């Protein structure tokens, strides 16, 4: 039986809405949350910042009831509550607006607004629902929409606002926004930020999880920084500037991560000519030399990812063309693309990068299995040899090759997803978000190995929203903003400030 926690002291003006003390959560050997303290006052916007793996998302999951903490107490408005499972969390007044829209696309706006509301009446005609909906849509500025329209027919931004409207309707006490503006345009971002402040004004406690410092300085009152599973005490935004935030987040120097580079030369190995697909506002053309690392830097929706996917052959309806080593590159389907020498890693390895349930070795050998087979018969010995070689060069523990791949850490999983292409002797590697969900140590190992491969002639095109990493790692960097390539320069001609400006608000773009 846990001991009763001491009663918290409340700030004079804003009462404490939420107080978490000593929250801990362990996943196997990984301590995701390590005695985390977190507080939130009613009527304030608390920004929650942290690197990959810092514990942000675990904390949010504990709050929303998706995950049960091993240890710690939670008080809402002074009363001790247990936030697991989701029903208890909702009963306590917690609501979350995630980056992935949690509207049901096949149901109408009005139905989505009352989705999951256990207090709603048992019987309501669709007409009545639509009438009720108009009142709920007004605060988010969507009253012009027909509430009986299906959510799949409206834009992404509008469906996110519908979600916010649902949260407002549910009269939540604590609202968590988890990267809500990632997919939105500037105008929509302004609307969402205004809604966030409105929620706070109405007395909600708002937790705003983001990576965009501009928004933090725009709407947050205080900032809580998480690092390595621990939380730092909250700091008022007035007492912070960008440099101080970075220092708090990283706690280390950045430059040591990226190895030195060699100069490039030679005929282009990849020539892209007026490539265009859904998500790009205008055609894109560029060239890639052997051993070159080209970074496409941009946020979600900038089109950087689309270029990669189009080249990989995973996007239908691609216009334009590309040549690889002088020959036309097939842009329809991964099978032809792989055989032409193109390796591809998406940004979501769990969804389409590896095969959960199969061994690491089988994961590594998937693209090149026919290469170690004769007459359809797999040579286990050759497969093992090649897999061991890949594992060795990427510093994956060879004794784990027989284990199911999902038991590996995020960093090792990423190594598997990248490394498997080595066995196909690729000409180019197309990678999205190469170090997402990867710890610092593995990140350095991956970067180092990729650099080594480039010195041997491999070319890489990577798309990343991590400007710092792109700057440190790539030879040439192209910035993308809202479907257009805005600039491309060699790495020594970029500063991080310029890059960030290009991906967030380029010179000459409409305000």
């Amino acid at each position, binding site marked *: 039986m846990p001991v009763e926690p001491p009663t918290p002291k409340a700030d004079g003006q804003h009462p404490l809405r939420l107080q978490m003390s000593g929250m801990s959560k362990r996943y196997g050997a990984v301590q995701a949350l390590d005695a985390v303290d977190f507080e939130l006052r009613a009527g304030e916007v608390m920004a929650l910042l*942290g690197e990959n*793996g810092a514990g942000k998302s675990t904390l949010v999951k504990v709050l929303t009831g998706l995950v049960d903490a091993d240890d710690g107490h939670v008080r809402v408005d002074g009363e001790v509550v247990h936030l697991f499972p989701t029903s208890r969390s909702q009963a306590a007044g917690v609501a979350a607006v995630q980056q992935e829209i949690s509207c049901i696309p096949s149901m109408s706006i009005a139905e989505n607004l009352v989705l999951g509301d256990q207090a709603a009446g048992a019987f309501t005609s669709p007409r009545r629902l639509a009438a009720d909906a108009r009142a709920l849509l007004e605060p988010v500025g969507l009253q012009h929409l027909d509430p009986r329209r299906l959510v799949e027919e409206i834009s992404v931004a509008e469906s996110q606002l519908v979600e916010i409207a649902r949260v407002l309707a549910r009269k939540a006490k604590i609202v968590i926004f988890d990267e809500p503006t990632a997919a939105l345009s500037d105008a929509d971002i302004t609307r969402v930020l205004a809604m966030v402040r409105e929620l706070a004004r109405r007395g909600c406690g708002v937790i705003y999880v983001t990576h965009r410092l501009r928004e933090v300085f725009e709407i947050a009152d205080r900032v809580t920084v998480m690092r390595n599973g621990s939380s730092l005490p909250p700091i008022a935004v007035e007492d912070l500037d*960008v440099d101080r935030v970075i220092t708090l987040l990283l706690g280390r120097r950045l430059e040591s991560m990226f190895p030195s580079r060699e100069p490039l030369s030679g005929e282009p190995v990849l020539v892209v000519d007026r490539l265009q697909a859904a998500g790009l506002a205008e055609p894109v053309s560029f060239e890639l030399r052997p051993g070159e690392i080209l970074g496409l830097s941009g946020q979600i929706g900038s089109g950087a990812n689309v270029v990669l996917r189009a080249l990989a052959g995973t996007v239908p309806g691609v216009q334009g063309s590309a040549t690889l080593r002088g020959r036309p590159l097939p842009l329809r389907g*991964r099978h032809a693309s792989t055989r032409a020498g193109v390796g591809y890693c998406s940004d979501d390895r769990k969804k389409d990068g590896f095969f959960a349930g199969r061994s690491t070795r089988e994961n590594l050998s998937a693209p090149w299995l026919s290469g170690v087979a004769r007459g359809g018969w797999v040579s286990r010995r050759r497969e093992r040899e090649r897999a061991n070689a890949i594992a060795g060069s990427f510093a994956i523990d060879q004794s784990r090759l027989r284990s199911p791949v999902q038991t590996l850490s995020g960093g090792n999983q990423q190594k598997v997803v990248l490394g498997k292409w080595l066995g196909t002797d690729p000409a180019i590697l197309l990678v999205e978000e190469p170090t*997402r969900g*990867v710890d610092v140590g593995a990140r350095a190992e991956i970067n180092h190995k990729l650099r080594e491969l480039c010195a041997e002639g491999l070319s890489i095109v990577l798309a990343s929203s991590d400007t710092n990493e792109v700057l440190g790692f790539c030879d040439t960097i192209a910035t993308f903003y809202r479907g257009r390539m805005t600039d491309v320069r060699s790495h020594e001609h970029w500063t991080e400030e310029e890059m960030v400006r290009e991906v967030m608000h380029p010179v000459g773009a409409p305000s």
Partner: protein
Amino acid sequence: MTKPEAMISFSDEGTTEPVAPGAEPPRSPSPVRAALVARAPLLFLVALLAVAIMVTPEFGTAANVKAILANAAIIGIVAVGTTFITLSGNMVSLAVSQSGMLAAVVFLSCVGHGWNQVLAVVVVIALLVAVGIAQGGLVAAGLNPIVVTLAAGAIVLGVVAQLTGGSTITSHGADIGWIASTPLGIPLSVYVFAAVTGLATVLTGKTVLGRRLTLLGANRSSADFSGLPIARTTIWAFVLLSVGIALAGILVGGGLLSANLDTLNTLSIDVAAAVLVGGTAIQGGDGSPLRSAVGACVIATANNVMLLNGFSLGVRQVGSGLTVLIVVVMLALQRGRTVR
């Protein structure tokens, strides 16, 4: 002083597992133990059967064991074939009964008209493979396998009905007694069952196609992005199943010397039950033809034990159904959550 618009972008935590630097999750249990745990439902069932057998004295005779194997053989052959469909993530085929019917009817028809028997076998296999390719092609194009096989089964039934005019086809005295023969006292069908199981297991475990089928079922998108030929692999799964159905149909036709619209009409369900009892995951990516063969034997044994103990048809059916439910539930509990 204006703050520089530096924006620190920390990539979203794409995976659910948080990562502290340098930490490594614990090793998984040894492969032997993992294999045992995965087979626990089946082992439990086998143990249950062992107890039942001990209580039923008539069970242990050679004749009885042969009868069980013969009963298991037909279903087992098709269950082994179905495993390719299941492994590749296409669940089960609901066209199996009707396709088996087609095979039996066409075979008997051909030999009844005096065709060379080898030719008849080839024709039957070719015909069923063609039907299988059609289904596989539609599934590869993106249609739901349940819908495709449901529709295909109905179409095949209609075609068979038109061909037979609703009447029974017989062999018209053609000399196909060899099909029902019992070399060394064991029915030919059992030899075919064993051979098919062996071949299929080897194919799944040791060939490129087998590995691709399993990977396809484990994660279709990953298979696609890794450059695996999805369409080709899917169609192969249906081709392999079709060969199994063809063999089963020929054996049944040869055994009964007649076939009509009732022949093999419960095969789809019986085969699905065998695959499920064997423990192959319905969502794909995990399992083997050997397991399905064992599943068919387990069901046949259970049925036999119940029969020897005088259980009526209805009770035996309930018993078979409960067998499936027990295994399925135990596997679900063990895996945590099955994908819907």
